[in-house]
């Protein structure tokens, strides 16, 4: 019956220092104060307080429709906040923030796309430039370096539409990294990838944030592939959220309170297994005024 979100005391705790211990990189890349987003009277999440430090790896978890992708859309400036404040690299969210690298949900490129892997990466650097212009040698070098960083050099000149899902995903990450973003947003980047590619993609992202101090917001419905990499988890369920380290958030008590139903969190051989979490948990309002199936609707398409 509680319509108030449950906020943990650790939610505003100072984020861990960057791995190499450089102290000057402390200004948060992403900062939220009392942020809320909703569609009509349906609140996706509220009272979100978050400071994401450079190099920090945040995983965003939650059931379908909890507002995970909407959080990314908010950061990108495509979705206004209903309340509160959000700063991206010190600025309010706006369209075309060059500090952000974005890896969208995996979707196969059309086989007839007249682009090679290299050209898709190039768009990450100069795809938004108007008018004819020659690509500089420096830009070409960055494109090649980004492809090498994700291990895609071997198919850099292959048509993008003929690459496998995992290969395309690497190229997309190279595209996001080519512009050297301060904040990397990844929307279910492991979806429909085999285990080998899942691990490779996770490690590419992890290495980037360690070596270049890019903060990472990693939306996923499956924590285990990145469990060893994440610093903190933001768990969104039906308007409530928890924010903290994996050990703090992933407990039976926390998830039971988030889902408002008994949920067991088990640790099996270093993996976390969540038992009893409903696919479509109760929303924040006790009276269900929206019809059945309304929760199935992804907020992205609303």
């Amino acid at each position: 019956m509680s319509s108030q979100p449950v906020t943990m005391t650790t939610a505003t705790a100072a984020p861990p220092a960057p791995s190499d211990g450089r102290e000057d990189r402390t200004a948060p890349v992403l900062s939220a104060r009392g942020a809320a987003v909703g569609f009509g009277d349906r609140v996706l999440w509220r009272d979100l307080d978050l400071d994401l430090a450079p190099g920090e790896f945040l995983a965003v978890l939650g059931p379908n429709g909890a507002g995970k992708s909407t959080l990314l859309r908010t950061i990108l400036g495509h979705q206004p906040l209903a309340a509160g404040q959000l700063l991206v690299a010190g600025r309010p969210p706006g369209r075309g923030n060059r500090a952000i690298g974005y890896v969208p949900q995996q979707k196969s490129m059309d086989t007839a796309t007249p682009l090679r892997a290299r050209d898709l990466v190039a768009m990450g650097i100069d795809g938004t430039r108007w008018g004819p212009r020659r690509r500089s040698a420096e830009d070409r070098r960055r494109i090649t370096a980004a492809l090498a960083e994700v291990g895609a050099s071997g198919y850099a000149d292959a048509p993008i539409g003929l690459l496998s899902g995992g290969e395309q995903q690497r190229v997309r990450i190279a595209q996001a990294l080519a512009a050297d973003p301060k904040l990397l947003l990844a929307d279910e980047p492991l979806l429909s990838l085999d285990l080998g590619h899942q691990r490779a993609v996770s490690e590419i992202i992890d290495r980037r944030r360690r070596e270049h101090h890019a903060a990472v917001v990693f939306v996923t419905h499956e924590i285990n592939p990145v469990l060893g990499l994440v610093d903190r988890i933001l768990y969104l369920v039906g308007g409530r959220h928890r924010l903290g380290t994996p050990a703090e958030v992933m407990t039976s008590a926390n998830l039971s309170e988030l889902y408002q139903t008994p949920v067991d969190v088990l640790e099996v051989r270093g993996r976390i297994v969540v038992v009893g979490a409903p696919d479509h948990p109760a929303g924040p309002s006790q009276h269900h005024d929206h019809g059945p199936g309304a929760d199935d609707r992804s907020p992205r398409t609303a």
Partner: protein
Amino acid sequence: MGSLFDFSDYGALLGLVTNSLIAAALLGVVGGLVGVFVQMRDMQFAVHGISELSFAGAAGALLAGVNVALGSIVGSLIAGALIGVLGVRARDRNSVIGVLMPFGLGLGVLFLSLYSGRAANKFGLLTGQIVAVDTVQLSWLVGVAVVVLAGLAVIWRPLMFVSADPEVAAARGLPAGVLSVTFALLLALAGALAVQIIGALLVLSLLVTPAAAAMRVTASPVLAPVLSVTFAVVSAVGGILLALGSSVPISPFVTTISFAIYLVCRLLSWRRMRRGWGRRGPAGAPAREEDLASAGAPA
């Protein structure tokens, strides 16, 4: 077959169609470039819809006794604007076009039936009238072509980004709606150009077929437009040159050449796919050994 082709007096005839050859070459350049985005954005049906409304505009102008080229441009711009504004998504777009097209065609047929002038003018709007390009018309065509080429030069890269990768392009702040409408208007101008030359019913052969053929054989964003333009110019100019020695109108030659090029490209791409197009070379700087191993297996 002897009566179909007769290449005596060819040199004299050639002198008479210089304007037409220039117009055809221009149309080839414009159509080949626009066609690349027609393919990427799945707008083949839009091309057809635009040409039918362009036809209606031209027929209306013929009836009213005003500049036919202007009428054709007005008609296609109206179609382009509606398609661009109402149909950002492919499914919406196709239903808008499906509604517009028969209306435009019906209107055009009505105007032509009311028109009492030369019958060749009527037929020409549907199936081409390229030999009749005079100097006045040519300056219109050149003007329109310049506008389309300049517009494409400005929006080329962002349009390529939005067409290939709409999510990331939007995240980078590119205005998808503005680009969609701008391209639809440029496409409309190209369509009006094509209706003037090869006729409303056959516009697809220069705005769709050459790019479709080019994209069968290359995935390079530079080579694809270059090949597409080459194919379109060869089809259009080649069609005229063949038709000069023949009693058959120009359009069948243009469409046949264009189709033949497409068939050859399909054959080439089929052979290339069988040999493994995009086969992986050795990775230059792999992230680590096991990544390479997993990258080797296509999904």
